[in-house]
């Protein structure tokens, strides 16, 4: 199983040094989306802003960027 790292950039830069084995990159993306939503929910609860630049970068064991989840794509804010 490949190991991926979910690095968070949301004002706090939290590089994932531990990583975790996932069945696929898709599974890592699903976890990243859950993580992004969890962080967003708590930012909102704490009355903190959520910026468009906030994102989670998924890297592999070689350190290569494999995918980026933008916070703006995991929430649905309507007019």
């Amino acid at each position, binding site marked *: 199983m490949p190991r991926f790292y979910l690095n968070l950039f949301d004002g706090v830069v*939290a590089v994932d040094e*531990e990583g975790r084995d996932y069945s696929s990159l898709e599974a890592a993306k699903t976890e990243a989306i859950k993580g992004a939503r969890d962080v967003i929910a708590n930012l909102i609860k704490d009355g903190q802003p959520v910026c468009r630049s906030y994102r989670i970068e998924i890297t592999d064991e070689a350190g290569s960027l494999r995918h980026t989840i933008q916070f703006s794509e995991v929430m649905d804010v309507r007019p």
Partner: protein
Amino acid sequence: MSNTDHPMDKLVKKLATRNSLSAEDKAAIFALPYTTRTYEPSSYLVREGEPARRYCSFVLSGFAYRQKITPQGTRQIVSLHMVGDVLDLQHLFLKRADHNVQALTKLTTADIERDALRALAVDRPAVAEAMWVDALVDASVFREWVVNVGRRDARTRIAHLLCEFATRMKFAGLNQGERYELPMTQEQIGDATGLTSVHVNRTLKSLADDGLVHRHKRYLSFTDWDNLMSVAEFSTLYLHLDQSDQLGI
């Protein structure tokens, strides 16, 4: 073999923190029939729904946790256990397991025959009282965890978990000074606090940025224990660390 090398010494020491025990009480614990078993990380000791096992396990080395899994497959870790902790004392009297018990790390347990332990509780009231107090303390820790998961923000929640772990490890004679290896992955910390692993990593990073903890891989040290305790709203009261002197009612 001297008594301090004997596996039962760990149980005697633990129960002696729960109630004052006489030399005869201690000798009776030492005489209990037991088997030692070793479990690999993640392996199950108890599964929800199963009938009670014929023995009760207590931890000789390593770490374990209790957990429940929702039908959607989400796991909630409800307590952590380490050397000296009895993992399923409740099955002395309850017929079926209502939760799962899993090894967190490589785990060694001494498994005591249930009937012998029940007989001991009947014959030796001070031992029975110690076991009862142990169950009451477990319940107190569960209450604190409900508050933690239900009413504290992510930062306070994780700080509280770290403070509890450090305090219990110190009391069990495990950590050297204010530095210890947290035997939990980010995912497991998340399961214990109701957060995602991404959020756990973020929170640990922010505690480190504020100078409260120092993190190197899984090694954690506390650079500002007093401040961390205050962020965690942590008090040791609910752990009832040593009841032995107060119970001479």
